[in-house]
């Protein structure tokens, strides 16, 4: 599973040449341009005055005013903090809980293992996103409505994470485990010393997926939060799409770039490592 081939081998013998390469390059570029069009438009609209948000004139003056307007329209500094706290909270708890559970599934024989694993996998399908009505009720019984933990809790025990890590841990050679035990390591110590380090690429890949999911999650935070103190960026962004005055694309685009900037930048900088970690993780 944790395959580590010479990375970026491309398609080897089948690397297209000549006409085929030209054709493929053109096609790939065409699709890529369509795919990046929304981002490209966001950059255009954000850096030009509103009257140019629907007109593409190369001589249009540049401006940073839209960012200033977006920043003033809502307490974005607070929303950034909330989102940051949220994704950190989610990620740390997910990694901890999923590691423990995955270890149990990968390396322990116990009665009911099959049934419990099936119960975990159920969440692959029945995600928290569809249980919004009941989860709202539970949160209000727990007195957690309108708090950051309330946004995080339903996602913390992640079936995806447990499943992924179980697969990874199962690939760890039994001899490594035995060696650690012989040296007198307990189950938890073995987990920390042997399994977790070997699962590093999986943790990275999973972490990136989790962060980008929760950074961008909208519906549940919208429902469960109501104050500035707990709302994440996505809910804050809604200020711009629900106004009496109609849509001002310049300011929305500025806000979009501003709020997804950190993620976008992170991805641009670590693009290579990101893809690599997926390859090493053998998520497949």
């Amino acid at each position, binding site marked *: 599973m944790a395959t580590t081939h010479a990375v970026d081998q491309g398609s080897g013998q089948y690397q297209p040449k000549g006409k085929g390469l030209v054709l493929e390059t053109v096609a790939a570029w065409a699709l890529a341009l369509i795919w990046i069009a929304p981002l490209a438009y966001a950059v255009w609209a954000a850096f030009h005055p509103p*009257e140019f948000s629907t007109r593409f004139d190369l001589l249009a003056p540049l401006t940073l005013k839209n960012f200033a307007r977006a920043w*003033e*329209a*809502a307490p974005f500094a607070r929303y950034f903090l909330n989102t940051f706290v949220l994704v950190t909270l989610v990620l740390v708890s997910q990694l901890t809980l999923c590691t423990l559970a995955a270890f149990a599934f990968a390396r322990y024989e116990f009665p009911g293992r099959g049934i419990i694993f099936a119960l975990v996998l159920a969440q692959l399908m029945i995600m928290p996103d569809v249980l919004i009505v009941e989860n709202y009720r539970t949160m*209000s019984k727990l007195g957690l*409505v309108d708090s950051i933990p309330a946004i995080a809790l339903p996602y913390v025990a992640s079936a995806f994470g447990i499943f992924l890590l179980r697969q990874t841990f199962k690939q760890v050679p039994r001899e490594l485990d035995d060696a650690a035990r012989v040296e007198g390591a307990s189950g938890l110590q073995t987990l920390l010393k042997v399994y977790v380090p070997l699962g590093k690429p999986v943790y990275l890949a999973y972490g990136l997926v989790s962060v980008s999911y929760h950074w961008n999650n909208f519906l549940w935070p919208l429902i469960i939060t109501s104050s500035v103190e707990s709302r994440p960026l996505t809910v804050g962004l809604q200020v711009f799409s629900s*106004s009496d005055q109609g*849509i001002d694309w310049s300011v929305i685009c500025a806000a979009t770039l501003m709020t997804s900037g950190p993620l976008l930048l992170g991805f641009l900088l670590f693009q290579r490592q990101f893809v690599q970690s997926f390859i090493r993780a053998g998520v497949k």
Partner: protein
Amino acid sequence: MKRRQFIKGSALAAGSLIAMPSILRAQTATEFSFFFPVAVGGPITKLIDKLAQDFEAETPGTVVKPIYAGTYQETIVKALTAHKAGAAPATSVLLSTDMFTMIDEGAVVPFDDFIKTDEDKKWLQSFFPAFMQNSQTGGKTWGIPFQRSTVVLYWNKELFKEAGLDPDRAPNTWAEQIEFAQKLTKRDASGNVTQWGMQVPSSGFPYWLFQCFSTQAGAILANSEGNKIAYDAPAVIEALQYWVDLSQKHKVHPTGIVEWGTTPKTFFDRKCAMMWTTTGNLTNVRSNAKFPFGVAMLPAGKRRGSPTGGGNFYISSKAPRAQQEAAFKFTRWITSAERAAQWCTDTGYVAVRPDAFETPVLKKYAEGFPQALVARDQLPHAVAELSTYDNQRVTKALNDGLQAALTGTKTPAQALKDSQAEADRLLKPYQRG
């Protein structure tokens, strides 16, 4: 869009006290909190903060705590949640159409309980009657108008001139509207429209814009008890037929659903010559239209007409009596002629009482910007915004029918008949009294 959205309270909203610490702290005899439907940080919050300070200065021993609760939808959710938790803010500004929901939930007290002096009585009589229609039912006053709006027609004077029309005169009647719009609609060689004569938004909450047509056709959609509607009356069908014909027959209005959010931008980009939208857009149009524009009353069918919209003050039934009294005083204070005039010039909302327009502040404002007076002139023709029990669903029934007719999947008569059937079913439980 959230201003139109509307909530039916239930035990689901029964939230926790923990979520509302600021209200709890505010609950002392002379201190009361007040929910206001605006997102934190905008320019409006500064105006409200200032008003609260001024009130405190003029009324020693009273402390007002404004809480900015977000959109109208979020504000009513919070107000009802707090109500069920037993710690409601003494007063909130909510949609005028929330009245029946608030009564249904037992969350509000009528203002009549606080009216004692002659002066109080005079104050209650001082508002535009059109605004009071959404504020009174069963002989009692449940809401006091504050930030209210209506629908008006905006037109591009340059495009009028190009089309050979008088740039200073908007259409006065339905027939004239079609005639103008035909002159204002331009097509390219292949028959595609490059400029529409007019545009009336129909996304999200088409019922509000439709109420303009139906009122102009002489119809009233709901009774004042909020438990009976008349969606399939002949005049209503006629109104919808007129709207559908604008695009299908006369081809002066875009086909299909016209998005509310993009309509102003289409107008700014000179792609439509006339648009119908809220008076709340006045400031936006003023700062973004790069051409001279006019604002006019909507054209008349059998009569002129538009619904009102926007928010009212309500007083909570759960707040202690002393706080209710203080909140009442605050409401009276903030809706005085001078402050209504100031609020109108600061925000663009319609001043809620006629005498506000006689104040020096507003007179001066109107001199430089006469378009601001159109909303006032139209108010005598305005009617209550559609509001019933189970409001969200009953209006959705109409929205669905309107969109079906506008997209051509049903005839106006069939669409409205279906809407009527659905609304009848929904309102049945409320008709036994």
